[in-house]
């Protein structure tokens, strides 16, 4: 479908009109927060709305994206992966080449500019794999604001290089031991800090979850991935891609790639959740496939939980996907059927990680390795002119230690 046709789609049939004024995407999303935080998120919504209309803000953001992050990130034709699978033409959107090594910086720059505008003096954040933490610590350093990052004790153990990077950048790391000591618990602790330090503190949420306006705001800041992809593909192939594929924990890189294409009906869109040890076990982090709608961390979405509404722990080889929830817009896109959601196991991701490294000379993070694994499942059966884009949302340097461990290699 051409751009013009998609423009002609009536608003009523558009997938891009959400959220509504109450922060809802269908029944998902919302503002399920304690009263102490409610005035803050209303302020944030107002400030974000004003910033979006302010050319100074937008220019500053764009300038930093170009000169600090290195955008646009390339859309790379993965020739050897394409040959290997012998089907679809595989493109990688190279967001792992961004400054700090992942897509997370796209959102952090937007939010820290907003924090400055709002006169906030302190930054807090949660992190799982540490990619978001590193990006937050980076922008906090760049803008001279003190920064505290909450990170589960389990994740600190499996993501040591990122922990050290954050410390070098001047961030204070607060280990979180409650629960299983992973991303969910880090987010609880960040919310507790925010509720305590309401006047001074800006909470940079790293994914398309949390109370309104976070899911929409983070999506908007990440949408640059999809916008560039669209332009680059049109320039290169003269048409839109046929399939988009991205991994999903909370779902920010996926939302960023998908969003500009939601109303392009010809584009098949696939999100890949973390299947852990398999969906038939309790050890996975596939909220959409294995969870049901509930309310956590400020929004209604699909959650891993038991029959009593108690949240269960996700599991994934990748700390960045190890979250029992998912952004509310993904929940909506699943229920409307616009996006297909599948999963890849730890083992499959590990195989894709090695394959990509050997064939393309690109060491992917374990997160996009899940998406790549799914690409490997569908690409062989697709025709040679099928244009498939996978979001390479992060690089794997941080993962080499845990990969070595999984491969039983001792690298000291």
């Amino acid at each position, binding site marked *: 479908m051409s751009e013009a046709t998609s423009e002609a789609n009536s608003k009523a049939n558009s997938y891009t009109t959400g959220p509504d004024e*109450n922060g809802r995407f269908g029944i998902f999303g*919302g*503002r*399920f*927060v*304690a*009263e*102490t*935080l*409610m*005035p*803050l998120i209303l302020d944030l919504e107002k400030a974000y709305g004003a910033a979006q209309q302010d050319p100074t803000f937008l220019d500053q953001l764009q300038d930093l994206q170009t000169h600090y992050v290195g955008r646009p990130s390339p859309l790379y034709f993965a020739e050897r992966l394409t040959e290997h699978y012998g089907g679809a033409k595989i493109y990688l959107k190279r967001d792992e080449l961004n400054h700090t090594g992942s897509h997370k910086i796209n959102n952090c720059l937007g939010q820290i500019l907003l924090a400055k505008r709002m006169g906030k003096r302190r930054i807090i954040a949660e992190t799982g794999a540490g990619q978001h933490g590193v990006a937050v610590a980076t922008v906090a350093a760049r803008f001279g604001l003190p920064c505290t990052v909450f990170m589960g004790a389990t994740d600190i153990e499996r993501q040591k290089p990122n922990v050290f990077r954050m410390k070098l950048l001047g961030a204070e790391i607060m280990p979180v031991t*409650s*629960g299983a000591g992973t991303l*969910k618990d880090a987010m*609880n602790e960040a*919310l*507790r800090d925010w*509720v*305590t*330090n*309401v*006047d001074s503190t800006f909470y940079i949420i790293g994914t398309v979850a949390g109370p309104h306006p976070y899911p929409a705001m983070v999506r908007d800041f990440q949408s640059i991935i999809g916008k560039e992809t669209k332009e680059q593909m049109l320039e290169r192939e003269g048409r839109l891609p046929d399939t988009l594929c991205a991994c999903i924990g909370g779902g920010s890189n996926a939302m960023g790639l998908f969003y500009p294409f939601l109303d392009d009906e010809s584009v098949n869109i696939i999100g890949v959740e973390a299947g852990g040890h398999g969906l038939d076990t309790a050890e996975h982090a596939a909220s959409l496939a294995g969870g*049901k709608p*509930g*309310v*956590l*961390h*400020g929004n*209604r979405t699909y*959650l891993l*939980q038991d*029959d*009593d*509404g*108690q*949240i269960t722990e996700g599991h994934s080889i990748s700390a960045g996907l190890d979250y029992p929830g998912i952004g509310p817009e993904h929940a909506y896109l699943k229920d409307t059927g616009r996006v297909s959601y599948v999963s890849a196991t730890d083992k499959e991701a590990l195989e894709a990680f090695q394959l990509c490294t050997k064939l393309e000379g690109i060491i992917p993070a374990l997160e996009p390795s899940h998406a790549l694994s799914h690409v490997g499942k569908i690409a062989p059966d697709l025709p040679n002119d099928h244009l498939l884009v996978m979001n390479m949302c992060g690089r794997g340097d941080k993962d080499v230690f845990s990969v070595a461990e999984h491969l039983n290699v001792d690298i000291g």
Partner: protein
Amino acid sequence: MQQTRLDTIFKELGANKSKAFVAFISAGDPDPETSLKIMQGLPAAGADIIELGMPFTDPMADGPSIQASSQRALKAGMTLKSTLDMVRQFRNDNDQTPIVLMGYYNPVYIYGVDAFIHDAKQAGVDGLIIVDLPPEEDDELCIPALNAGLNFIRLATPTTDDARLPDVLANTSGFVYYVSITGITGSASPERHVVEEAVARVKRHTDLPVAVGFGIRTAEQAQAIASVADGAVVGSVLVDIITKSLDAQGRASAETVTETLKKAQELAEGVKRA
């Protein structure tokens, strides 16, 4: 809306110029049986209202004490259904003391809002405090609960300014729970004069009683806070007594019930001196 036990107690206390002592425990902490015994002993220890925590894995507004108590209860097998059973058992020999369930929305949502309201009402629950349901989400549970005759007690906080207070108070009933600090449960205690001003501010917008909580740890603090409000809510310190009384395996000991009730009595006496 019909008069609830909460309306009755505040009317009685008001007539005697007396203040309400609101005691919080997590349902099922450290185990269902011990928890019921503590609950049953609270009215005699001086609790005018019992705030019963519905355990949740992710209590985002709570400090370490109540987080731990919630975890202990869950580990002991507590569910929302058994919390309601506990209320039912309590009501077998106490029909006066108001019971307010406090917790987070997800377990209620999963139980089913209509089924929950029905079962809570039948069990003898008087009011609900759901931390993560601000007025913006009133259609979820607040309105259906009010229609069924359950009080919906809202938290007002230092960040709730005068422009916002009317929205917060609009569908509030029973009493207003003023959170005296920006922070989580169990944090530092606020200054009396700060609370006094805050309560006066809330009272300019409502005729409902105002109870104040967060950070009250001693009988003296309870007295000071209750003297400038209609009641004082105490939670973390009671939960800490439970924690301290546990044996090496984390099980209830002979002192768990008696020590908790003794502390409750001390705090109640503080409130009654106000």
